[in-house]
């Protein structure tokens, strides 16, 4: 029992058996491939199709109900197969094809090659081909792929599809022999063809002898190529150049591939670490939904594409479906569009800024000088990024993004203004985020302890939260900052919207000397600042837990030592007291 289908061949309707159609299709495909290198290939193939249609219609006119396998085989015998052309067309086409294809590749062709086996296929015949290539039962590969597909996060599926795309299917007898690595001789060809098509003995003999000629012709052709090599030096030079350029592009492709792979691997490895960033930045289902697809597509598609390219070039496969390219480009652009959408959406979340102002009530110092110090971190930090600028704790995110500026006070008192600000999609959102910022300040005698960073709840979003401290200093009074606080100090006419980091003082080279601090004196004209690095050196042998406020020359030495001693002695206690207070303040604020 056989199914009959109707086909349109050269604009003629022809009823044909299903199996016969399959043989015809493969035959016409092989012709197309063969004539592809010829000028006017389409015309030749359509001429041949027209002739085949004519022969078939003649059969039907003579009373046949439909075209059978035998009819197709007969037509193939009349028209000839590409292998036969190759032999008989040697003097003409061969020269062309030899100059077009690499002689090196040609000599490789007679070796074993990886094909997909259409006779032993479950899906695409990849495993069957691998089995034939490595002489192992295909079931082994099927099991490996299945295990990789399940256990290897789908890598088996990916590898399988790449192999599916890049390896050609073994359709002709010669290809099947190459797939198995058998010698292309008369007996083998005969056996293969007997398996493949049921034709008459005469037909087999015919093809067998053709094949013998074909294989000998191949040997002679390689010899010719070598001769040509010797004859034409410039030809050789040109080829070497081509090979070099090709090599360069392969090299480039491999480098790009490696870079992409490394990036991919890094992202995979770093994804658990990067996850908090993602949660900090992204809000809403759209952003979260599109984030991972865009990352995978943008990085994964080029990797797949380049792997396909390299394998294709290495195996010398010329023809693969162009839809592969279309699909890959489409997927990549989808990834790009996703990425752009996410970026726009995130950018919108940073659109507006709002600031909340607050005054910290300072207990006015009797010495006329206030010292600012950075408190040690109270929170157990889990992870730290960007040189400690961003720290993640259990329930808190600490951002090292506060700035200090000094202004002249209007009266005789010190003032400390705290401005908390954040960005958001709307003013109210920005305001809510700004209010959420926790920045607990504590005062211990004349020392004001600033937290090491601004804190926001872990489940909140990062929207460029900042804290700005404005210290208002009365005329003729002084402010002192330790090194850490000074890192955050800006000139008082600092522009709020400018990027902080551009102006950041680079005094990292002073790391080994933790003692230099800065004393700022307020005059009628504004700030007068002096560094007292030189003096602090003699304290380095003492407890360097924190800097003991170093006075300028205008204060009396006695006062200085008492104060310093007191500070040293109380240091630890004061800090712990500060802890408790700032912690409660933090609780109160949040």
């Amino acid at each position, binding site marked *: 029992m056989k199914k009959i289908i109707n086909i349109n061949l050269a604009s003629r309707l022809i009823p044909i058996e299903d199996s016969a159609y399959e043989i015809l299709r493969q035959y016409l495909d092989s012709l197309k491939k063969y004539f592809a290198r010829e000028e006017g290939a389409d015309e*030749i193939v359509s001429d041949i199709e027209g002739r085949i249609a004519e022969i078939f219609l003649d059969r039907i006119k003579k009373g046949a109900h439909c075209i059978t396998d035998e009819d197709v085989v007969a037509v193939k015998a*009349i028209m000839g197969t590409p292998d036969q052309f190759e032999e008989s067309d040697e003097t003409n086409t061969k020269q062309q094809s030899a100059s077009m294809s690499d002689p090196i590749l040609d000599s490789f062709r007679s070796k074993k090659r990886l094909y997909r086996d259409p006779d032993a296929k479950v899906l695409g015949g990849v495993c069957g081909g691998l089995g034939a290539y490595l002489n192992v039962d295909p079931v082994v590969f099927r099991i490996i792929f299945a295990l990789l597909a399940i256990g290897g996060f789908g890598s088996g599926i990916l590898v399988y599809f790449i192999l599916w795309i890049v390896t050609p299917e073994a359709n002709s007898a010669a290809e099947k022999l190459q797939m198995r690595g058998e010698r292309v001789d008369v007996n083998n060809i005969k056996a293969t063809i007997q398996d493949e098509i049921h034709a008459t003995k005469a037909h087999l003999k015919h093809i067998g*002898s053709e094949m013998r000629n074909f294989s000998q012709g191949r040997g002679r052709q390689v010899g010719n190529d070598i001769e040509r090599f010797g004859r034409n030096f410039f030809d050789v030079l040109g080829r070497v150049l081509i090979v070099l350029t090709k090599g360069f592009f392969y090299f480039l492709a491999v480098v790009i591939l490696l870079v992409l792979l490394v990036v991919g691997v890094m992202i995979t490895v770093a994804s658990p670490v990067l996850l908090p960033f993602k949660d900090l930045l992204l809000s809403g289902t759209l952003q979260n939904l599109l984030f991972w697809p865009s990352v995978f597509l943008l990085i994964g598609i080029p990797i797949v594409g380049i792997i396909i390219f390299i394998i294709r070039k290495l195996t010398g496969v010329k023809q693969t479906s162009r839809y592969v390219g279309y699909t890959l480009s489409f997927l990549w652009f989808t990834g790009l569009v996703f990425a752009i959408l996410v970026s726009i959406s995130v950018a919108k979340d940073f659109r507006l800024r709002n600031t909340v102002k607050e005054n910290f009530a300072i207990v006015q110092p009797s010495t006329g000088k206030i010292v600012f110090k950075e408190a040690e971190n109270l929170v157990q930090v889990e992870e730290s990024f960007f040189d400690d600028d961003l720290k993640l704790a259990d329930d808190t995110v600490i951002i090292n993004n506060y700035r200090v500026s000094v202004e002249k006070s209007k009266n005789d008192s010190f003032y400390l203004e705290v401005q908390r600000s954040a960005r958001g999609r709307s003013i109210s959102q920005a305001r809510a985020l700004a209010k959420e910022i926790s920045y607990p300040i504590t005062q211990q005698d004349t020392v004001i302890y600033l937290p090491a960073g601004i804190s926001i709840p872990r489940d909140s979003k990062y929207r460029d939260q900042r804290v700005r401290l404005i210290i208002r200093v009365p005329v003729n009074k002084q402010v002192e900052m330790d090194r850490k606080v000074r890192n955050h100090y800006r000139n008082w006419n600092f522009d709020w919207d400018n990027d902080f980091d551009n102006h950041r003082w680079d005094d990292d080279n002073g790391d080994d000397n933790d003692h230099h601090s800065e004393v700022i004196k307020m005059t009628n004209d504004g700030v007068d600042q002096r560094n007292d690095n030189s003096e602090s050196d003699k304290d380095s042998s003492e407890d360097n837990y924190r800097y003991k406020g170093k006075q300028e020359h205008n204060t009396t030495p006695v006062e200085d030592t008492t104060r310093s001693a007191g500070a040293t002695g109380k240091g630890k206690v004061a800090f712990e007291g500060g802890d408790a207070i700032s912690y409660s303040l933090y609780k109160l604020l949040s």
Partner: protein
Amino acid sequence: MNIDNTQSQMRKGVLEFCILSIIKQGEAYPSDIIEKMKEAKLDILEGTLYPLLTRLKNAELLSYRWEESNSGPPRKYFSMTDKGEAFYLELEKTWNELANAVNQLTSK
């Protein structure tokens, strides 16, 4: 050396000359050409004839016209161009010289 091979090489050399001479006698359809060559015991595969005709046509040695056929798709009828005539005469001259030379050498 392989006898089949040498034979096919010999045949091939005169193939274009034969095809051109058939077309010179009048418009021809590829199957006609095959038939005539078969009659003369010069077997070639149809599949090799089509690219050969296309090449000759692209070299402007041949031209063709379509003709409706009642037994199938329209047929291409090939005829010779002026350029083809000149080309043919050249080939004929060479062939005659060659044939004479071969005859002379082999009939001793």
